């Protein structure tokens, strides 16, 4: 593993200025790499290939570290996770055709979660474009709907500018993925033009601060509320607004609910925290959201996994919606008080504009009562197989606060988010909007390289893990100290849970009794493997895996009968969450 990852920002800046003395660019590919260097890129995740070779060749002379991934999908997820943890765009490379299409899942994932990322794809030479040449696909056409912008680089003289602009665009305003498609003749072509500094195009405008008058109106409405709730989304983390959020919530004593991507934006051990709301959120968060009369929603796009049916979402509430993207305002939930701007700045504006604290003693008591009534608990009878919640909880208790938790997608993801106690932003790395199975293995690699001094654990499911298992080879090669925990129930458990709940138990294609012995598979890759079956071995196994210096995989065989609760059925009413199977029948 390179030491550059731990280079402090100031030193990185110095290195940037050093690069001004670097040899002048002579090709389009060198211009691409120079643009990345200028933007402060430390890591690139990618896979070599014919059309991208000129760029790799230019990378040979650069200080940028390249991490060869085992699959391009992994490259995009690793870059995505890198972006989540550092806040700066993660970079991924792929060649044309299949390389580029393999990146698409990760690009779409980053797009849904507004993660900063830039993808650079090789392309056949310009004169071949449109002729169905070997390994040609219309990458710009394929990725346009899932990026902030996709560029087709047309000249060696401007390709560096394309990359600079894509970089700036991925980072500014509402973050997201951008792509630059690089025809081989463009990267091979001669140029002596240095790329311009990263800047967004002049048509791209970002409003940083909300209108003062609108802020005052919103603050007055919030202060007058009897049952106020703050709903903190992923945008709070993206805007580095966690401290501002905590200040506002604690000063005015308002309960805080987060969305799932907002996990970590507010410490879950704080008395005002109600943790997260939505389909598998806590009962108390969902009851608070349902019964609030004024909802201050920050940096959330009101995804349906959060809202349930919109008709029953916060039905009594005036909604104050803070978002950097005007198009999010009143898209899914009508905003009575829209505040467009950067979450950190607008929270500061709101803090200053509040005429007084809401008189909400009774409401806070009510929220506390709900916390007591509907605690996040699970049953652990002596003779039962291992409970996944117990594995997560035990791991959480053993690790420092800044441990980064990555996941795949499925039941294990919900248990990880429910039973891990998150207290810091950028410690929760997961695929939310797109719900990409297979996200975990490569994401953990990106997260570890982004924060080499922090512990990284990845909870995965057996189905999800199998989808990107080849990434373990990368973790081994880079000697990344990551602990993978597979909550193995020999099924795609979330599907099976829905089949049992809503399809009369017809378990079509959801049971995986043929999965490999993951501990042995890990050993075959050169990682450390552990098999975990009994409750009494949980702590010891976790400690052994943590102590191992390198990637380790714990294959935890959990109770296959365990399901995720609370649960709000799709499109349902958040206030009517099910706490057990037979509640589902009541809804």
């Amino acid at each position, binding site marked *: 593993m390179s030491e550059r990852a731990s280079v402090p920002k100031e030193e990185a800046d110095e290195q940037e200025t050093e690069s001004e003395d670097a040899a002048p660019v002579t090709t389009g590919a060198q211009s691409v790499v120079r643009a990345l260097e200028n933007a402060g890129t430390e890591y690139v995740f990618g896979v070599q290939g014919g059309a991208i070779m000129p760029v790799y060749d230019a990378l040979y002379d650069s200080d940028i570290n390249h991490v060869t991934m085992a699959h391009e999908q992994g490259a995009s997820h690793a870059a995505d996770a890198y972006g989540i943890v550092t806040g700066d765009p993660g970079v991924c490379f792929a060649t044309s055709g299949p390389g580029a299409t393999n990146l698409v899942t990760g690009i779409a994932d980053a797009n849904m979660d507004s993660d900063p990322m830039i993808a650079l794809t090789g392309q056949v030479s310009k004169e071949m474009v449109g002729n169905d040449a070997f390994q040609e696909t219309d990458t710009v056409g394929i990725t*346009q709907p899932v990026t902030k912008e996709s560029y087709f680089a047309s000249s060696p003289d401007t390709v560096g500018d394309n990359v600079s602009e894509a970089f700036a665009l991925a980072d500014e305003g509402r973050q997201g993925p951008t792509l630059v498609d690089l025809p081989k003749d463009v990267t091979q072509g001669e140029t002596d033009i240095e790329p311009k500094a990263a800047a967004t195009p002049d048509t791209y405008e970002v409003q940083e601060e909300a209108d003062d008058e609108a802020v005052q109106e919103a603050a007055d409405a919030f202060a007058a509320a009897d049952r106020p709730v703050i709903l903190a989304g992923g945008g709070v983390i993206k805007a580095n607004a966690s401290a501002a959020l905590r200040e506002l919530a604690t000063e005015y004593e308002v309960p805080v609910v987060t969305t799932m991507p907002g996990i970590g934006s507010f410490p879950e051990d704080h008395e005002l925290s109600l943790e997260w709301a939505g389909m598998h959120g806590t009962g108390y968060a969902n009851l608070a959201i349902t*019964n609030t009369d004024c909802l201050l929603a920050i940096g959330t796009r009101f995804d349906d996994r959060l809202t349930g049916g919109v008709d029953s979402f916060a039905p009594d509430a005036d909604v104050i919606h803070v978002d950097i993207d005007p198009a999010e305002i009143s898209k899914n*939930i009508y905003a009575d008080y829209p505040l467009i701007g950067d979450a950190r700045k607008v929270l500061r504006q709101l803090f200053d504009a509040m005429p007084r604290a809401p008189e909400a003693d009774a409401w806070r008591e009510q929220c506390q009562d709900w916390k007591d009534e509907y605690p996040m608990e699970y049953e652990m009878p002596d003779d039962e197989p291992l409970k996944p919640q117990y594995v997560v909880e035990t791991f959480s208790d053993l690790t420092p606060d800044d441990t980064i938790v990555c996941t795949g997608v499925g039941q294990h993801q919900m248990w990880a988010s429910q039973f891990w106690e998150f207290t810091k932003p950028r410690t929760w790395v997961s695929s939310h909007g797109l719900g990409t199975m297979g996200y975990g293995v490569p994401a953990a690699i990106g997260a570890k390289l982004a924060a080499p001094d922090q512990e990284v654990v990845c909870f995965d499911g057996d189905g999800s893990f199998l989808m990107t298992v080849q990434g373990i080879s990368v973790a081994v090669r880079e000697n990344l100290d990551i602990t993978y925990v597979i909550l193995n129930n020999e099924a795609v458990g979330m599907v099976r849970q829905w089949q049992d709940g809503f399809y009369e138990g017809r378990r079509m294609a959801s049971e995986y009794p043929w999965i490999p012995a993951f501990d042995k598979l890990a050993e075959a890759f050169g990682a450390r493997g552990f098999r975990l079956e009994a409750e009494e071995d949980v702590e010891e196994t976790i400690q052994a895996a943590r102590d191992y210096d390198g990637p380790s995989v714990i294959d935890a065989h959990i109770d296959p009968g365990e399901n995720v609760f609370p649960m709000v059925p799709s499109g349902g009413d958040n*206030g009517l969450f099910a706490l057990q199977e037979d509640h589902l029948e009541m809804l």
Partner: protein
Amino acid sequence: MPGPAPDERIRPEGRRNTQGIRVDPEAEVTHEPRQAVLSALVKHRPGVLSEVSGLFSRRQFNIESLTVGPTSEEDTARMTILIEEPEPGIEQAKKQLQKLVPVVSVSELEPEAVRRELALVKVGGEKPDDVNAVAEMYDGQAVDASTDSVTVEITGSKQKIDAAVEAFRQFDVQEIVRTGAAALERGPNTLDKDD
């Protein structure tokens, strides 16, 4: 898990409609679809049309017509987009459009904006004088004639062109091509100045 079952919990009185708008419990209020004319200035470069049309299709906006052409500025094109959507959908379409990187500005034109579309109608050539007479009724003119066919050009509002096309049906219509609407605001205001 402990705690009351779903039907025993505190329930608020309120409700929202399908558009996410909070409604009076007694009254269902939803916005009915209306037609809107959006005029967008965009960077004149390859792929813009696909970016805009892709946006409309993937967001399921109900698009009536879309026309595009250059403006007096060399690097700028103007799109006129007619959509039919409930009010929130129109607002959303504007914002999503504005969000696209190559889009310079978007505005909704007043209903009284100047709106024109063009149709070319090719009919059988047996009765050229009769065809000409009908064309004149709609301020149109024959732009091509052969022994077997006459092609007529009509310009005007959608309603006028609908009516003209209907009138031409008596002459064995062989082909019709119609553009979508192109529109400009009345009076001295221009999109560029609005910015």
